[in-house]
């Protein structure tokens, strides 16, 4: 190496170091937001059609608005004590009023005339019809698309369920962008006259359910549909200039290469063969302001559902121009809620600013809001104590006694629509006996778990459905009774636990679940003489094991999707994907199905009550406790109230500056 290079090297290195340091120290100063809160983990998406989860819920409620919005009653401050849950009901939002037909099947929503998108366009009935269509479109792959299965034809559209005689929309591969389902390619509308399926492929006997489904899906792609053409909606990007005429009989298939073995006459390639949305799905924009929705069955909680984000509208032009997911970028996003997104930094924050075009902007008092991404409960607590956040949503459970003592009323807690329970694999020998399962249930001292282990004020669960749902009384469960538990076990043929195969409690390895499992292990040993092993595994493996019934007992939790007992009960039917216990009960399935069709609210709740009683008697799950919500809220935060859903609309929150300044908050 030559001499000058060697001589210059130290200086070069120093210069480089200095340049790097200058770059590193150049921070762009960010003005503090009016209100800052911890929104939990990074949201998966800001697209209402694809999102699921609590942090997403808070963000979407700030950015968008459905036909209705869950709101507290007027003057709730005067009506409810500070520690009490305030009931929330769906109030007019994008719709200023709505009517329900006497049979409970048809909802007519009248949109308010001053409803606007953040780009100044009016929000119209067609926006909802189009957004729901997008949410249900199979290619959108929304995890909550099933929340729209209450609409007539919603499930069929989402799962592409087409029979002979179905009106269909056949989409040809003539899109602007093949990877974007919207804007769509040329649509052929017509009626299916025949479906040629060919021979069903043989499935190997040892194939898993997943493999079977995959083979079946591939086979279905080869089916040839004969469609009598009624009309054509040509896309602007269709260069093929097919010559179609109304009345033609077209042969279409999603997989023409394979389908030639079924029909040799040649088939047209289709991207999708779906039921025709406009004629089969129960949503119709009758005018710019009038949206008529038809349901599959009377659904008394449908008003709660339209206030839930899978039912939120998105701006068609915005989505079609930018495509998914680019339309969710702050610079592109058009929304209709109380706030818009100023910027979003991954794993840092979302900055909301007030949307001046929001119809109720007058009552939105925060100008800017920061939704922070915080990944550690301890960090939340630190930031709260250091006045960096005004509202904390995650609390380190181990610190609860200290928090309660030191922070007093800044710690807010109230019953929540959440149940913590143990699933039992009812296909395992021993556990297939309901007597054993009931014995296991009776031998758990749930009060002790709440008092000693969780220490948060959670309530011991005597039934499955949490209290606090209007009009519903939970079925009668059982209290802690080791004597009765022992008797049941003896009756089942396992006196003193003799002969019962070893039980294993599986949980995802968090401290709280481990401590509870240890306590249950001890209780079962002391009260029943049963030996129990513990298996703590990582979250994804735990989900997978639970799904494959690869466990004997496992912990679980369920947060209600909407304030109705149905959300805690319909998951236990034999066909439900959430069941995951192997438990099947005909009378239970029947009650749930009948309740879904019943239009008398009293009778419906009674049916759900009876169904819950069956669930408790058969005990495929052991409810342990009903959780309470836990929040940290600064005294200067006004308009924040407790409720059973643990949702706290940002549009109602405001800051009492006098209280804040008097407390000497450093900002």
């Amino acid at each position, binding site marked *: 190496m030559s001499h000058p290079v060697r001589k210059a090297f130290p200086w070069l290195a120093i210069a480089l170091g200095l340049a790097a340091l200058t770059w590193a120290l150049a*921070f762009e100063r*960010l003005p503090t937001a009016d209100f800052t809160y911890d929104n939990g983990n990074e949201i998966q998406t800001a697209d209402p059609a694809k999102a699921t989860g609590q942090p997403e819920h808070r963000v979407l409620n700030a950015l968008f608005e459905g036909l209705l919005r869950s709101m507290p009653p007027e003057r709730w401050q005067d009506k409810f004590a500070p520690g009490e849950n305030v009931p929330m009901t769906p109030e007019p939002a994008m719709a200023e009023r709505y009517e329900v037909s006497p049979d409970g099947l048809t909802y007519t929503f009248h949109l308010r005339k001053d409803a606007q998108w953040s780009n100044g366009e009016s929000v119209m009935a067609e926006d909802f019809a189009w957004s729901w269509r997008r949410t249900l479109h199979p*290619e959108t*792959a929304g995890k909550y698309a099933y929340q729209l299965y209450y609409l007539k034809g919603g499930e069929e559209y989402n*799962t592409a369920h087409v029979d002979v005689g179905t009106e269909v929309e056949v989409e040809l591969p003539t899109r602007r962008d093949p990877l974007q389902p919207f804007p769509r390619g040329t649509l052929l509308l017509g009626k299916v006259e025949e479906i040629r399926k060919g021979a069903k492929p043989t499935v190997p006997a040892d194939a898993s359910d997943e493999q079977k489904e995959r083979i079946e899906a591939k086979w279905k792609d080869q089916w040839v549909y004969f469609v009598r053409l009624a009309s054509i909606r040509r896309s602007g990007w269709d260069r093929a200039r097919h010559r179609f005429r109304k009345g033609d009989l077209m042969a279409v298939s999603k997989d023409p290469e394979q389908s030639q073995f079924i029909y040799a006459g040649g088939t047209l390639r289709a991207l999708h063969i779906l039921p025709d949305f406009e004629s089969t799905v129960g949503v119709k924009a009758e005018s710019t302001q009038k949206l008529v929705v038809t349901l599959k069955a009377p659904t008394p909680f449908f008003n709660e559902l339209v206030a839930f984000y899978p039912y939120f509208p998105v701006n068609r032009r915005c989505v079609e121009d930018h495509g998914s997911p680019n339309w969710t970028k702050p610079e592109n996003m058009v929304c209709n809620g109380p706030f818009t997104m100023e910027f979003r930094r991954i794993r840092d924050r979302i900055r909301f600013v007030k949307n001046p075009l929001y119809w109720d902007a007058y009552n939105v008092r925060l100008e800017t809001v920061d939704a922070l991404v915080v990944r*550690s409960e301890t960090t939340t607590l630190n930031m709260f104590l250091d006045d960096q956040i005004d509202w904390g949503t995650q609390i380190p459970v181990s610190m609860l006694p200290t928090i309660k003592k030191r922070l007093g009323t800044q710690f807010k807690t109230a019953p929540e629509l959440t149940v913590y329970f143990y699933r039992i694999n009812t296909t395992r020998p021993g556990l297939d006996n309901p007597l054993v399962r009931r014995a296991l249930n009776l031998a758990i001292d749930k009060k002790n778990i709440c008092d000693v282990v969780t220490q948060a004020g959670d309530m011991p669960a005597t039934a499955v459905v949490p209290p606090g749902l209007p009009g519903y009384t939970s079925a009668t469960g059982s209290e802690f009774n080791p004597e009765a538990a022992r008797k049941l076990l003896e009756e089942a043929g396992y006196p003193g636990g003799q002969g019962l195969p070893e039980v294993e409690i599986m949980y995802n390895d968090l401290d709280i679940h481990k401590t509870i499992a240890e306590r249950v292990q001890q209780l079962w040993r002391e009260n029943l003489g049963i030996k129990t092993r513990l298996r703590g595994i990582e979250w994804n*493996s735990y989900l*997978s094991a639970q799904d494959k019934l690869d466990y004997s007992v496992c912990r679980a*939790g369920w947060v209600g999707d909407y304030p109705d007992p149905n959300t805690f009960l319909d998951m236990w039917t034999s066909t439900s994907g*959430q069941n995951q216990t192997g438990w099947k009960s005909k009378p239970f399935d029947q009650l749930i199905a009948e309740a879904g069709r019943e239009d008398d609210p009293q009778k419906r709740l009674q049916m759900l009550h009876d169904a819950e009683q069956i669930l408790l008697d058969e005990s495929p799950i052991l409810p342990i406790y009903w959780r309470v919500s836990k929040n940290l809220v600064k005294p200067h935060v006004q308009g924040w109230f407790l409720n059973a859903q643990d949702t706290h609309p940002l549009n109602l929150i405001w800051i009492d500056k006098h209280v804040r300044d008097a407390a000497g908050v450093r900002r």
Partner: protein
Amino acid sequence: MNPLVETLLVVGKRLGWMLLTLWVVYTFSFFLMRAVPGGPFASDKKVPPAIQRQLEARYHMDEPLPMQYVRHLTNAAVFFDFGPSMRMEDYTVNEVIAQGFPVSATLGIIALVLALLFGMTAGVISAVRRNTIFDFGFMLLATVGIAVPNFVLASLSIILIVFWLQLVPAAGWGSIQQALLPALCVAAPYAAYIARLTRAGMLEVLNLDYIRTAYAKGLAPRTVIVKHALRGAILPVVSYIGPATAGILTGSLVLERIFNVPGMGSFFIDAAMQRDYTLALGMVVVYTALLLVMNTLVDLSYAIIDPRVKME
């Protein structure tokens, strides 16, 4: 041979090996990740099978595994496109890295500068004032700095600096004040190590003849130490900067979480835990490339600084 051609040849050979290593690491991670139970769409609210299939189709996960491998590898190797993130659906993997890397780099640079500043100062003082209270004090501190895990240090410093002295905010990212505490915690073990290296280097140099000559000439002690001794003693420190930089950029997972810094470290762990296949793969590739590049740079700089080292 021309030294320049020689250098280029060596660099080219290193580059080839780097690409090969990257490919092996990529392939290994790709298949290992798919072998682990669970998937990116798993959640405690299970999605119906029909929707699960739609989700898999969106990310081409319905294709046979070898085909997915070829597709992803081609996109990654040819277009540097790692595809969309499966758990942060609004972003591509490239966007996630583009936002996370500058944050990690900022934290790393500040930490490295702090480590050098504190480490070298302490090392020089310890060596010059050998066997005094300063020496023992600094070296005790250095030992503690290496031994104490960073989350303990972080917790202690939060109690002390945030809540007692109220000097800087507890967490977050966006100002120098917020960067200071995490940078200090990242820097601590490196500073400790640098202090020990500097001290050892100085002690060796201070006993050499040319230092004695410099003193004999009547030069001021400060000039002797800074101008003559330090130059000789700094070599081991320089060679340590390479691995330290790589380590600092990759190794602050825990601290990023405690101080809520939106850097790359926590993406890595979270991506793996959530089975975000595409993001995890992107992270693996970036980290591997970073380590390889840093090691190569260090090897090259050895050859420049020390005439005895030959490039091969």
